[in-house]
């Protein structure tokens, strides 16, 4: 789960990381009110999960009320790489001399967290990592002990952070590790840490991704989940408890198990269609869950046809068939054609139960996907 910048900054501020004064706004009037309190210059920043917001026009610096009003009108409601901007963070402009980078992430290869510090802040850190990897200092952290204070100092010195702010940056890094551990973050970063003319350090941006598997023990963060959702359908998926990712195509996809669902998406693409979503109903799904999954996919107005692909291990074909029947029998007219392929545990029982007046049935994964792609092409003509 990725927190919005304003959510992450609240978490940082509570932990004592210095952040600029800011207010969240959802209307032009709220933006005007916020700048009158903060003063000028003020940054107006779109709160969407998109990298490179600034370049895409999602961040503007206002130096007057008129400008603030204009930028608020421009940014609120704008489409930023497919996401509609509904909230902006209005923030005091920071006059800076240097921009630094600090971050902590899980090094999967090593199986332990790694702290990263660089003087090359304010730019895309991943391109820095690719082009000049030596510009980023790294320190691996033993998860059993945490980040020792000496390690925080060492990585800051290794990065060549100016001596007069090195102590403050090391202290921010230590706080970030405390947050990383105590909040079950999977990634946490400040890019940039700004250094002001008075040699104060301040977190001008905030990225915090939370391990979704740890939300059960992070009730405060779990409450932020709905607000953090990228769109309404993803929020609905959270409600139903599905692993769901929305894409831009028109073939809706439902399946069980992450690898097989990904494969189904890939095959839709392979056979000339475009996947509309990833939806994993998980293992052992009962009829109600199956019906909820169909409801999810039918709610996506981009979807023209659906493929339902189940290879049962702990999921039982008869339960899946019952759920499909229940969901489809509730419609007077089936909204979108559904192709079903059932294999594995109780697939035969499922095929007997399945109401084949309501769905197309195919025996193999390849045939099911091809049929759904054809259905989608017909429906979109």
């Amino acid at each position, binding site marked *: 789960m990725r927190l919005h910048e304003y959510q992450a900054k609240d978490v940082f501020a509570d932990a004592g990381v210095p952040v600029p004064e800011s207010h969240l706004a959802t209307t032009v009037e709220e933006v005007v009110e916020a700048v009158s309190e903060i003063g000028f210059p003020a940054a107006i920043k779109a709160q969407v999960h998109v990298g490179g917001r600034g370049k895409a026009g999602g961040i503007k610096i206002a130096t007057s009320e008129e400008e603030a009003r204009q930028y608020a009108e421009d940014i609120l409601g704008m489409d930023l790489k497919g996401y509609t901007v509904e909230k902006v963070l209005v923030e005091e402009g920071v006059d800076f001399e240097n921009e630094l980078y600090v971050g902590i992430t899980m090094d999967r290869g090593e199986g*332990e967290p790694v702290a990263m510090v660089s003087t090359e802040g304010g730019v895309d850190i991943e391109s820095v*990592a690719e082009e000049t990897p030596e510009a980023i200092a790294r320190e691996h952290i033993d998860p059993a002990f945490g980040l020792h204070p000496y390690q925080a100092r060492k990585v800051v010195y290794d990065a060549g952070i100016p001596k007069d702010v090195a102590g403050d940056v090391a202290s921010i890094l230590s706080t970030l590790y405390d947050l990383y*551990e105590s909040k079950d973050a999977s990634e946490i970063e400040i890019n940039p840490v700004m250094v002001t003319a008075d040699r104060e350090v301040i977190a001008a941006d905030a990225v915090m991704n939370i*391990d979704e598997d740890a939300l059960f023990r992070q009730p405060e963060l779990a409450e932020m989940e709905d607000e953090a959702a990228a769109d309404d359908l993803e929020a609905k998926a959270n409600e139903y408890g599905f*692993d769901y*990712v929305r894409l831009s195509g028109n073939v809706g996809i439902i399946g069980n198990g992450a*690898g097989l669902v990904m494969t189904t998406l*890939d095959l839709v693409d392979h056979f000339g269609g475009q996947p509309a979503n*990833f939806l994993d109903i998980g293992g052992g799904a009962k009829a109600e869950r199956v019906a909820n999954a169909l409801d999810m996919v039918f709610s996506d107005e981009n979807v023209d046809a659906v493929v339902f692909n189940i*290879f049962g291990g702990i999921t039982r074909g008869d339960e899946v068939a019952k759920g499909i029947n229940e969901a489809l029998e509730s419609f007077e007219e089936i909204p979108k054609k559904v192709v079903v392929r059932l294999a594995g545990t109780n697939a035969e029982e499922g095929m007997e139960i399945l109401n084949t007046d309501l769905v197309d049935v195919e025996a193999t994964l390849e045939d099911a996907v091809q049929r759904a792609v054809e259905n989608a092409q017909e429906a979109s003509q």
Partner: protein
Amino acid sequence: MSIFVDDDTRVVVQGITGGEGKFHTEQMIEYGTNVVAGAVPGKGGQEVAGVPVYDTVDGAVEAEDADASVIFVPPAFAGDAVFEALDTNLDLVVAITEGIPTQDMAKVNKRLSETDTRLIGPNCPGIITPGEAKLGILPGNIFESGDVGLVSRSGTLTYQVVSNLTERGLGQTTAIGIGGDPIIGTSFVDALDAFESDPDTKAVVMCGEIGGEDEEQAAKFIAQNMDTPVAGFIAGRTAPPGKRMGHAGAIVSGSGTGTAQSKIDALNNAGVPVGDTPNEVAEYVEDFL
């Protein structure tokens, strides 16, 4: 022959009294697995599916001489369950549980590196040596004994590929689901290494997916160390960057590392054909044999 498990493996089931634990214990026994004990705190003295339950893994191992464990413990307690298993010096621990917090696994991984125990998983379907034993939740009826080793990050994708193999009369020596989490015990390289040393394994299938660099490491290993032919499949070609595709570990980073293309290229460069469909993978294997 086979790798990691056979009909001599003596299994303790952690979490045997839970719904999943009980159901799959029955299934494992029905398949012929030698399940000798269960371990659940506070449930010592009970019996599940004819198997005696102990309060601790240590107690179960001591009384029943178990050498492997299967874990069906809910995610909040599963990290602790793996630690408990590691502290009894079992040969093999198979963690089925999905949803263990990554930071718990980072701590487990640290301890694991200090032991001689092999961990498979977590977030995996387990391991099966057809006709001998299965430790986990794989549906036994789709597997056949044969010459093909299989290693995969995904459960249901494994079943799909196995059914494509079995339909062609291509049975399996051992099939291992290594799990879909970012931090796992047994890697592709570990499994490939074991298959290479197994004289009965004449070909190997590896099913990878987006996220991390394990497939790239595997490609290097195959090029340098393997004579046994390998066919591959990579799921997630259409996955957008920055989105977790179901598995906690299945995510392409913003900068584009962990992509399907990078893995397919690495495997192709190592001489491993990668199927566009699961069925194509089975075709490659048929050509090998």
